[in-house]
């Protein structure tokens, strides 16, 4: 009896301790959460990874902000903006009285200097590439509050680029120490934590005129271990968990009731594909299987996607039928039908191509047993479970699948460099809904055209057609034309199955119920996108 009593007592003491910790934090007006790894850079112009991107989002003052919730542009440092009818001139009118976090005034001079630094090849700013031809872009400031950007040709969705450029004091890049965004970097201990303090000169005010952000500071611990992350959330040391893994979601819901959220399908996809690269070191007969549309469709038909969602993701995923998730309401092709497993239809497709089942399993027309390896990365439990489920599903067709998990660099070497693999299963994170951001996956010339990278000319007619439609949508200004093109691409992909889409993992996150004003979005950062209007509940 006594033994059982002890943990209860300990838990009681503990909850007292953690409640005190939370109160102390509320008193400090600070919130805490974690980044999975150190930001590669604090220089907002050089951001090229997710952690740095997150830091830039909270610290950088930008001309325009994409409201992550409504997915619409909102003027930020710019009071207004417009694009000329030919798309070659973008003009920004700055707000009056803007200041950097050190109190110095922010004028068009600073904006021009920042943009020029981003465009400079020596900076190697990833955002520069989005201007398509950064070398020919020029910037000028006719007066202290106007900035003009001259483009050599129209850039679709050009406003988005300015959401990624944080304005810094002219010629004094400070790596986030002097900013025009809601927070500034106050302290950074590599491998431990990052402390962001409120910018007292942030331009935004709430409806009652109170200066934003409400929070005084934010602490981002660098924490790779998920167990620790969840434990600290349950103990109320953290107020936010972005991306909760599906296998711990239900448990977390019990441990921290009222704080976990399943927001439905995310923009991300999980997919499986076969290596169709002609230069890969695979035997000729395997290349023949993988380039066969019937073979790919048969595999797709044999997979029970509902089981994948229900078992591998404990129900926190949505069966997939294409590369645009239903969460992406504007671009999702509603005509596409869900794929339901149908083993006999799959076998019929295979039989037409000369495959037949023997006692030992499926063999092709030349008598080669259908046996292949399925590569995936180690460490993603849901994906590993999916691989096992798919392995089992394909035995119904007589296919023998070897699941091989590799560490990421070894996997990338095979997928991107040596092409020495048969099939692979990975996820694709879509950070924004606009299909232009997926160009490098769909254009046959792109190195990220996974099933057959960097084709000199499209290998098949349907790939040529995808190229054509994707380019068309990128160049068109009319949304209707773009939508038609993207719908067509979705249809081709559904027919050809170069990527066999499995599920859309749901967006799972946890937020302390003590916070007010949290808005969720499918775009990064998914939980704290409206950081400037989040505050502790008054009752605390």
């Amino acid at each position: 009896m006594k033994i059982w009593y002890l943990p209860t007592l300990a838990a009681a003491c503990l909850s007292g301790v953690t409640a005190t910790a939370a109160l102390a934090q509320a008193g400090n007006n600070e919130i805490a959460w974690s980044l999975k790894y150190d930001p590669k850079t604090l220089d907002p112009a050089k951001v090229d990874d997710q952690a740095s991107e997150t830091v830039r989002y909270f610290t950088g003052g930008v001309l325009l902000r994409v409201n992550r919730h409504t997915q619409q542009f909102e003027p930020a440092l710019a009071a207004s903006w417009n694009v000329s009818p030919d798309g070659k001139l973008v003009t920004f009118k700055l707000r009056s009285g803007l200041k950097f976090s050190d109190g110095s005034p922010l004028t068009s001079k600073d904006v021009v200097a920042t943009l020029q630094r981003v465009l400079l090849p020596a900076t190697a700013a990833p955002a520069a590439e989005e201007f398509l031809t950064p070398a020919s872009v020029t910037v000028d400031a006719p007066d202290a509050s106007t900035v003009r950007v001259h483009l050599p040709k129209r850039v679709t969705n050009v406003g988005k680029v300015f959401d990624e450029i944080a304005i810094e004091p002219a010629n004094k890049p400070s790596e986030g120490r002097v900013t025009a965004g809601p927070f500034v970097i106050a302290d950074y201990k590599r491998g431990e934590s990052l402390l962001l303090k409120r910018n007292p000169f942030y331009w935004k005010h709430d409806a009652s005129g109170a200066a934003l952000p409400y929070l005084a500071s934010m602490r981002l611990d660098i924490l790779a271990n998920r167990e620790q992350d969840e434990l600290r959330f349950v103990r109320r040391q953290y107020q936010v968990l972005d991306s909760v893994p599906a296998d711990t979601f239900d448990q977390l819901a019990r441990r921290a009731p009222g704080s976990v959220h399943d927001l439905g399908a995310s923009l991300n996809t999980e997919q499986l594909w076969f290596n169709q690269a002609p230069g890969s070191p695979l035997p000729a007969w395997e290349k023949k299987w993988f380039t066969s549309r019937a073979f790919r469709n048969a595999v797709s038909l044999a997979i029970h996607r509902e089981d994948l969602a229900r078992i591998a993701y404990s129900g926190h995923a949505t069966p997939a039928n294409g590369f645009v998730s239903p969460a992406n309401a504007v671009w999702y092709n509603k005509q596409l039908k869900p794929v339901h497993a149908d083993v006999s239809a799959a076998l019929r497709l295979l039989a037409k191509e000369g495959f037949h089942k023997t006692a030992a399993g499926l063999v092709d027309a030349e008598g080669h047993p259908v046996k292949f390896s399925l590569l995936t990365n180690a460490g993603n439990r849901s994906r590993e479970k999916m691989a096992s489920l798919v392995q089992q599903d394909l035995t119904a067709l007589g296919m023998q699948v070897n699941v091989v998990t590799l560490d990421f660099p070894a996997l990338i070497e095979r997928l991107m460099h040596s092409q020495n693999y048969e099939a692979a299963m990975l996820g694709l994170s879509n950070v924004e809904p606009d299909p232009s951001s997926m160009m490098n996956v769909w254009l046959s010339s792109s190195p990220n055209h996974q099933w057959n990278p960097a084709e000199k000319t499209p290998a098949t007619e349907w790939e040529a057609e995808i190229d054509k439609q994707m380019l068309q949508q990128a160049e068109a200004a009319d949304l209707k034309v773009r939508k038609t093109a993207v719908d067509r691409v979705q249809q081709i992909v559904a027919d050809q199955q170069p990527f066999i889409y499995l599920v859309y993992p749901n967006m799972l996150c946890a937020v302390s119920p003590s916070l007010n004003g949290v808005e969720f979005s499918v775009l990064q950062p998914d939980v704290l996108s409206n950081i400037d209007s989040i505050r502790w509940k008054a009752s605390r």
Partner: protein
Amino acid sequence: MRVARTILIRLLRVVSLVLLAALGTIVLMRVAPGYFTDSREMDGQYASAGRAAVQERQAEEGTLAASLAVSVRGWSHGSLGQSRQYDVPVTQLLRERAAASSKLLLGGVAAGWLLSLALTLLLSARRTRAGEPLIALSTAVLLALPVGALATFCLLSEFGGPMFVLALLIAVRDFKLLYRMLRQALRAPQVLYARAQGFSYARILRVHLLRTLGAELLSLAMMSFAVALSALVPVEVIFDVPGLGQLAWNAAMNRDLPVLVAVTLVMAACVGVASLFAEAGVTQETAQCA
């Protein structure tokens, strides 16, 4: 003169060990798959940045010889290079993280030894063997439990920290070996004779056992040091200790060669120095025998 020579030879031994370990690390990592890759290559948003980084690396060290040359050139200037992952000098990273790891390692090893020694002496001193089944059961459980699981249990139950896990890990392995060693030593004729004469256990321990087992104890200490070093990675990762183990793991998974080489240098120096002690034990014994 002879002393100076001995010192020189031993020093040379440690230095060459450290150098060979560093060169070996470069060869192993360079030959392993995935050296010329970047995790961003697969990420649609940052793919071109990733590819550019890979190309830059390939241009700099296209061959194994080039990789070795780059590192050796750096060492000759007293530099351990620049971390690929963090883009800061490796020495700075080591400096930031050495304290946490050395504290954990020394504390863990010391506590582990003390625990296993105390347990061994306690059990071997007693004539009855009543406690043995319980000890056997708990050591079996501790041996069967993966370090990660032990760490997770501690984390969830909020009992014990990283040092505790490390100490327990070392204690259970050392105890297993130590206890058998001691039991065997206790059955040696001269010890049995001494016991029959009615010498106290403490005296037997001092006069007979410590002398005969000295070298083995040192080797055992050396072994537990190696065990602790290998357990450092999972323990630091799970408890989120910003130490060298965590750094080494990240470096291995991101193919950050300069960092991994530097961590290997530190580990090799530790092992080299520890083995000096172990060797000194054996040499001393040789002297005694001669």
